[in-house]
């Protein structure tokens, strides 16, 4: 990918220019951006992403439990027909959100979920960073087999693991009805991806820095902690987000392990709205939107690690 875009944009030197010219430069840059193929691609992709979500949003804010069906539009003009394709509730209402928050201890469950997902992220990252470092930096008997075994663990369907996991966690470890049991299971589930991803990223880090540190007498632990981890921040952000999400949306294990409603996580709470006979999709949609807010905030907090590099000198970003 070329950096012609970077060349054409206002660089740091321009900051010394008078305000007006600087503003013009920014405007020119924005205009050039808007007319580029990248921008067109991103706009198109965003529309495709947003459209199905609009249905969820409009269901959540409709105050009803099922969406209005598409209207009968055969007699309308082209644009009216197109407009009819955009899902909008007949009237906006916060009723669904209010109902979800009052009928259930939703906030409490959301906090439970944060604890479980947070714990999963921490334990998952600690276990996977150390293991990935060893896989990336050492050569030892059983290394390839070990890496392969991590992969194998992802190949067996989760539904069939339910009973044995129940036996181990609840009966053997006595961790039923506790968050620790859930956290351990989630962290281990997320581990293979985290190890492989981090190992791949560690592989790209230059070895020379470590070598000189070793020569100066630094221990492996110091190098790992002081040099490798800070350099690998983008990969750690990605794997952390992944571990978090593994725990965040899981509902079967969470509802099987917990025997106390005050310990449920929020996906369990959401599933109360879906049953065989009738489902409160409006509540479910409203709850889903509230559940996704912490994820979005987390992503916002992490995204600066995902976009350092090339853009570090730019004004915007």
């Amino acid at each position: 990918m070329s950096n012609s875009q970077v060349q054409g944009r206002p660089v740091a030197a321009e900051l010394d220019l008078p305000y007006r010219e600087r503003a013009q430069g920014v405007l020119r840059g924005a205009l050039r951006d808007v007319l580029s193929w990248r921008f067109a691609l991103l706009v198109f992709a965003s529309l495709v992403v947003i459209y199905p979500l609009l249905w969820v949003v409009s269901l959540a804010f409709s105050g009803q439990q099922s969406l209005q069906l598409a209207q009968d539009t055969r007699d309308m003009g082209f644009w009216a027909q197109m407009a009819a394709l955009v899902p909008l509730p007949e009237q906006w209402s916060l009723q669904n959100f209010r109902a979800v928050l009052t009928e259930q201890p939703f906030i409490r469950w959301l906090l439970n979920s944060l604890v479980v997902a947070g714990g999963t992220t921490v334990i998952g990252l600690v276990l996977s960073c150390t293991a990935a470092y060893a896989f990336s930096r050492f050569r030892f008997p059983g290394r390839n087999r070990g890496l392969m075994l991590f992969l194998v663990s992802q190949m067996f369907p989760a539904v069939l693991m339910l009973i044995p996991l129940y036996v181990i966690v609840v009966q053997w470890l006595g961790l039923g009805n506790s968050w620790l049991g859930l956290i351990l299971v989630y962290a281990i589930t997320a581990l293979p991806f985290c190890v492989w991803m981090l190992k791949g990223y560690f592989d790209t880090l230059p070895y020379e820095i470590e070598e000189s540190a070793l020569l100066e007498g630094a221990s492996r632990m110091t190098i790992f902690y002081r040099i490798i981890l800070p350099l690998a921040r983008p990969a750690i952000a990605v794997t952390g987000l992944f571990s978090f999400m593994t725990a965040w949306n899981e509902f079967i294990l969470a509802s099987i392990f917990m025997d106390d409603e005050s310990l449920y996580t929020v996906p369990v709470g959401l599933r109360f709205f879906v049953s065989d006979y009738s489902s409160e999709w409006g509540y479910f949609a409203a709850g889903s939107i509230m559940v996704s807010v912490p994820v979005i905030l987390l992503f916002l907090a992490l995204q600066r690690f995902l976009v350092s590099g090339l853009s570090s000198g730019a004004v915007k970003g």
Partner: protein
Amino acid sequence: MVRLLAPLLGLLLGLGALQVGAQDSRELLLWHGYRGAERQALDALLEEFNRAHPETPVRALAVPFGSFPDKLSAALPRGQGPDLFIYAHDRIGGWSETGHMIAPMEALLPEGVLERFPPSLLDAMSYKGRLYGLPLNFKSTALIYNRALVSAPPATVAEMIDRAQQLTSRERGRFGLAYSYTEPFFHGALMNALGRGPFDNSGELALDSEANIRSLELLESWARHDRVLPEEPNSTLVTNLFNQGRAAMVISGPWLLGEIDPSIDFGVAPLPRLVGERPLSPWIAVEGLFLSPWSKQQQAAVSLMAFLTSTASAERLALEGGHLPANLAAFDNPQLASDPVTMAFRRQLDTAVPIPNHPAMTLLWKPLETVLKKVVKGAAQPADELQRLQEQLSKDLAALENTQRRVAQSEELPLWLSLALLLAVLVAVMALWRQRETIAGSWRQHRTAYLYILPAALGMLLLVFFPLLYGFLLSFTDTTLLNESAPLASRWLGIDNYLSILGDWNLFYGESGQRSINYDNFYWTLFMTVCWTASNVVISVGLALLLALALNKPIFGRTWFRLILILPWAIPNYITALVWKGMFHPQFGVINQGLQVFGFAPVAWFDSVGTSFFTGLVTNVWLSIPFMMVVILGGLQAIPRELYEAARVEGASRWYQFRAITLPLLRPVLVPAVILSVVWTFNMFNVIYLVSDGAPAGANDILITKAFRIGFEKYQYAYAAAYSIVVLALLFMYAVWQTRVSGAFETGRGAAR
């Protein structure tokens, strides 16, 4: 590092210990699946009970519908779980055959309690002559009609269809009659009216009986000849149509009442009569109170049951929770007796039939639904299709019952097998012993590396490989629902499961004139799974790479784009997958509506293999791009920008830079991401299950959904485990090949030797 971790782990352990806390042993634990008003009514009653019986306080736990059966079957056979629970009656047969799930309870009942219930509901709670629970309430369907369109409920089916035809205008999307007619629960009304339902007098499966064939023909004529029914119905669609006045009559249950739009003036009546025959007789599901065989306070649990089914409690549950109480005396309550809606459902009970609680019934739902879907689309003849289903289900049933019989003979673990196991252990120990020097040496030499990996490895061993071993052993048995609790030795089978999976060469069925592909065949499913995986991974990795590259450099509004593009990952995919399914609905979906705006013909998305495949593909790509994009964005950060600057100075083109710099340097991150996404997509259960659900007729099932159906719809647990092991073996071979080709095992540059 250690300093940092120790307090953290301590904190977590402390949290765990706090929560486990001692449980009051006198407590009665009750599990139920209620929420909303129903739950409040129950909670109020339980409080009342607790005041009267402080010695055995009741603690209730609500469990979501989606995980309730799993939770019960994980806990109860292992002596855990509640003292009593509320659940639908149709699993009694299976539970009673499994053992350790529910306890017969007639001996514990106080005098006179049984007289509260009508015999049909008590029958529903009994299996092989034993009473396994007390009926609490019943759920029946009836005819709900819009008074503005239908002034009086039709008395006969002919009248109903006549009226429906006058009110149907397909172009306007208006229908005379709407109900989930492809669901066997609803179709039961027709089967029960014309004959005896799926089983004959002696309780044998008789799906291909004259009456059942006629019931399908009748439905086919409503759907294809009279054309009064909407396409591809589901409960949400039915509710919607009724609320908008676009369905004049619907067949639904009391659960619909709370969702009817206040502007609709509706009436409820029992289902009409077939001319010269019985009235349409819907199936009812009875919710019952069940007793755990492990409860230490069975007597107290039964008193609670007696309390909850008393007339006073039943009235309260009916008035506040919307129950149709099984204790019929409650209907004499003046408030209930004067409510025409409630009394219409009460009258419907007189002709309704409880769902058979035979274990075979649970095998029937899904395949019968597939048959119904095919018949109403004209893709199959009722008689042929039912005969085929009868044959297939008889075979499945015989297989199930065989396993039970085998256990009854109670074989010993074959001697050669125990010897072989012993030998294997000996060989392993000896091999380890002979290698002890090497192992010890390599431990000493590489201690740092092993120590770094140890915690992760221990966790994996306990929580992944032990369950996997369990699955592996299970696959060599003939474990099913019926012999689950028998000792392993008596279930041992050997490699038969694998032979029958891999040796399944029935690629086609039918005569040579009109042969069709057998979609249940392993190799067809494997073929579909490979197509599914390859197309998904190629498309989503390609698009994600494109988007990540577009986002990697500054652009106007970049933060917003990035945020929008990860949204599909952030919103629970359960609802977005269902939104996609709704968008692909042939009659009411926006995609077809959009096609029509642009002058194209609408597509019946779930009718052919290709289009149905496409629906799953689109949904899954949409769901998986954000994750892949984030991974690639992370990987792009590792590429030093100087390389690009140098390349530009040399005058390299963009494409060349991409090929020579971006792609190779992205590889260490991309390769594991691709391998893992192949593994995940291969086993992507949710999207297939929620969107196309294998339509048409299981052609779009992938191996994992098929394994699920074998395990949880046919209850052949061992066969499903063998299926899963085959999946694992296939993926393992792929992973070995892929890691070889891509060199994923390479260490970082200049790794320690």
